[in-house]
């Protein structure tokens, strides 16, 4: 467990933790950026959730694999495998997107498609339905046309190389036969399953359901999509993990 209250790095450490709403400019190798507008009061690397955290503390969960492993020390070695980041804000742990600057580029850890300020959504047929971003940053795909499917996609594509699973949490008022959440190579699909290159079927549920999609063999940019029929899907979370 590596514990630091300063929010930055240290003389013997081979990395630095920085917060902000934009990637730091001119970062050093192994700069860890936490996408947050809340002040980072300290950080902790641990496989277990910290007890009694202070407001603003960042917990970086660690495991045995990561898209951005690094040696934590300037001398000798402790290899750290960061997996995800959370920050303690107003009495609760909040998921945060995090990246590490390595080899001249930013490397994503866990990526949140929902909730996110990076990804926005659109309905590719506004006659059939619409997409709204809710106050809690969930996304609702609403089919407003009777007996037609509506498909919604992210405006932005994302390269899935290096990520092995896509975890989605949703509720749905209909769960009709082709309702689904998945990934596609384009945003021109009209309704069918065959528009996705990987998907999980959406079932009717008022209680949030979590499903996982195997994306380990998709190493290219994709758009995230959702299909609904005669109802609405509310996507609480889509995250990508190693």
């Amino acid at each position, binding site marked *: 467990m590596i514990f630091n209250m300063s929010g930055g790095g240290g003389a013997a450490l081979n990395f630095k933790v920085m917060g902000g709403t934009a990637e730091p400019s001119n970062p050093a190798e192994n700069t860890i950026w936490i996408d947050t507008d809340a002040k980072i009061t300290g950080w902790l690397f641990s496989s277990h959730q910290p007890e009694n955290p202070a407001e603003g503390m960042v917990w970086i969960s660690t495991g045995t694999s990561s898209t951005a492993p690094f040696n934590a020390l300037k001398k000798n070695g402790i290899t750290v495998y960061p997996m995800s980041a959370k920050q303690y804000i107003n009495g609760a742990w909040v998921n945060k997107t995090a990246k590490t600057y390595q080899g001249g580029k930013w490397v994503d850890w866990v990526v949140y498609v929902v909730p996110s300020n990076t990804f926005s959504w659109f309905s590719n047929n506004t006659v059939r339905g619409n997409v709204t971003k809710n106050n809690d940053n969930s996304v609702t795909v609403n089919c407003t046309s009777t007996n037609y499917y509506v498909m919604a996609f992210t405006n932005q594509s994302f390269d899935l190389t290096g990520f092995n699973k896509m975890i989605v949490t949703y509720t749905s008022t209909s769960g009709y036969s082709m309702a689904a959440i998945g990934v596609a190579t384009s945003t021109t699909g009209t309704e069918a*399953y065959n528009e996705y290159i990987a998907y999980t079927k959406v079932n009717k549920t008022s209680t949030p359901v979590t499903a*996982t999609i195997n994306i380990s063999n998709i190493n290219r940019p994709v758009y995230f999509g959702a299909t609904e029929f005669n109802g609405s899907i509310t996507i609480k979370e889509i995250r990508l993990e190693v």
Partner: protein
Amino acid sequence: MRTIYIDSEFKCHVSNDGTMTAVETDAFDGKCDAYIEGYRFVPDGETWTRSDGEVFHGEMVAPWKDFAELDNAQREYERQLLAEYEAALAESVPLSELEAAYQKGVNSAYD
């Protein structure tokens, strides 16, 4: 909608060797055999465990082969379909000839 077959690992096949389960799905409409057979279809209510221990619940459909390979196969399939279509079009009777023959027939009715 078409029928595909899944084996004990939920890998898709276009023909049944006698041990597989038939599945009716839209997921592969318009897709060639090589594309389909690079996929895994986990039906609703079933569970597949990846070699690293990660568990996936159906219905979940995802490639088990590198998608780039499947995409290349599908593009080649579509290029072939297009070539066949264009060849058929080239062999067909031009519209102008059809119109001329039709008009000739119309005119002969008044002879």
